């Protein structure tokens, strides 16, 4: 497994280089003159030229890319056009809340989703199955903004249990994570159910029962382990999306995460922030994919040896 992981990490390097080229080119693909954009509408031609020189945009493009990469290595991501703060500092305050929210949402969504999926599968076409699947369909169908508002109305306004928004300690994470995780839980529940139903038909399940194993070890040791592969795929993809921050949920709960930062930056054409956010999201996705692939080899020994 370690050899495989190491190889995969090495394979990440060319992908990251391609991504860095794309994000570097981003600033050059913006319609119009980037130096003028940065300098502002009312700037004189001299001001614009000064900005161009400051940004290094007057240098040859290859030199610009080398400088860009050098800055990237030292964590220098440029300065925000709206706040004047270094982009890296803005990310520092915005990234961790998003990361925590993502972890919390994924954690409960995966646990509950797996449980609902397994119970539905072993009680196929009985009431626990119907109940589980109705819950799952509701979770997928209810839009996030509406669920968020309902939760605020009930738990914050009526019961006063949690804050309506903002970020002030652990309690601020509860309602956003419920909203964010509902859809993911539903998806995981449905995937677990169908995957379990398929696995329970397998010959080796019959072998397990013929050995006289207790039903729970047949379900957990033999069936669930084999069903997890498709579940990991879904969970991994969702995890990657969540890391990018959720615009809707962060807006509903006025949550200071990456999603809102990105939306605000787009609204104000804050190109250095957008550029760096793109790079970060791409990197996160690659990392999550790597983790998923390594998990595959843990779950299915055949994959590791065939590769």
């Amino acid at each position, binding site marked *: 497994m370690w050899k495989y992981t190491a190889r995969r990490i090495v394979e990440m390097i060319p992908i990251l280089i391609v991504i860095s080229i794309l994000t570097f080119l981003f600033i050059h693909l913006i319609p119009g003159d980037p130096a003028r954009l940065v300098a502002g509408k009312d700037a004189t031609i001299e001001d614009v030229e000064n900005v161009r020189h400051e940004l290094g945009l007057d240098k040859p493009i290859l030199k610009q890319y080398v400088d860009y990469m050098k800055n990237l290595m030292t964590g220098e991501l440029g300065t925000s056009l709206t706040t004047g703060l270094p982009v890296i500092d803005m990310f520092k305050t915005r990234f961790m809340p998003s990361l925590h929210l993502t972890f919390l949402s994924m954690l409960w969504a995966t646990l509950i989703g797996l449980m609902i999926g397994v119970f539905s599968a072993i009680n196929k076409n009985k009431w626990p199955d119907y109940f589980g699947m109705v819950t799952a369909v509701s979770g997928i169908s209810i839009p996030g903004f509406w669920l968020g508002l309902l939760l605020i109305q009930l738990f914050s306004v009526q019961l006063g249990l949690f804050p309506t928004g903002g970020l002030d300690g652990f309690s601020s994470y509860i309602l956003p994570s419920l909203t964010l995780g509902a859809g993911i839980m539903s998806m995981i529940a449905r995937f677990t159910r169908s995957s379990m139903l398929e696995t329970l038909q397998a*010959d080796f399940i019959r072998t397990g029962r013929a*050995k006289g194993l207790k039903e729970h070890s047949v379900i957990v040791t033999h069936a669930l382990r084999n069903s997890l592969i498709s579940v990991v795929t879904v969970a991994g993809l969702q995890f990657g999306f969540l890391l990018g921050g959720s615009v809707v949920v962060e807006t509903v709960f006025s949550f200071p995460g990456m999603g809102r930062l990105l939306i605000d930056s787009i609204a104000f054409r804050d190109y250095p922030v957008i550029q760096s956010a793109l790079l970060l999201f791409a990197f996160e996705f690659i990392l999550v994919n790597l983790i998923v692939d390594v998990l595959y080899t843990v779950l299915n020994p055949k994959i590791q040896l065939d590769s």
Partner: protein
Amino acid sequence: MTEHVLRVSDLETSFMRDKTEIKILRGVNFSIRKGEILGLVGESGSGKSLTSLSIMQLFHGTTGKIVKGSIYFNGEDLTKMSESEIRKIRGKQMAMIFQEPMTSLNPVLKIGKQLMEAIEMHLKLPKSESKHHAIQMLKSVGIGRAEEIIHEYPHQLSGGMRQRVMIAMAMACHPNLLIADEPTTALDVTIQAQILELMKKLKEENETAILLITHDLGVVAEMCDKVVVMYAGQVVEEADVFELFASPKHPYTKGLIASVPKIGDKKEVLDSINGHVPSPQNMPKGCKFAPRCNQVMSICQEESPPTVEISATRQCSCWLYAKKDVEVNA
């Protein structure tokens, strides 16, 4: 005479489809003594596999249910036991190996873990001892590098090796009865012979009774002491293996034996029994074999034939013999 390990009498098993009961086994009778190999033969759909699943009561995830009859195993009726009582017998006193060695082992668990699972549970051995026992079992089924194999996964082994592992797993707790459902059908002929030889050897060593389900009459002749022929969920003939091949009584058994191609025959078309096994929903009245029988009489289409005892070791359900019986009695 040694005691019966297993006695199945009047066994009826049904499935539910759209709220209607479909009877698949319609009164199965046979018994196996200690150390005996009983062959259960018949075409696909005759109810051989379902008989074995009924004995093990492996109906999970299906609508199958034993509706009548009894299965005496070591003197106790399995049909009257609860699931948890049966579970203590499964894998310990009564074990099973299946047709498909490629899919019968869990692909994501190591061989050792799969072997030790049953050993730890039934024999209540600590981990180190059960590991030792697992290695011993693998050696006893002719796997040389047993110490390495227990750390390997099923996909690293060939079909024959996997079936050996299945046998080691089944024999791990020294069961009184081994049910082998077409254990060699999916294997190469050379491997087939090895596996059969191995089963015979283990039977001798442990005095295990074997219920061997197969449609291969060559395997039956090679392995079995006694043969039960099934057709459409019923036993049509039961005989000692030599008697059966020397003089088959039931027209179905005759047909089966005649269908085996013989070396040296210069026939263009191989012999076969015309027609198909009737579907459980459209069972003919009277003898179930009557529509395909070449010795059919009018009574066959009206009434089911009784089971006639031809000799102490022989039984046959056919009007041909029942009639003679009636005549002799009269």
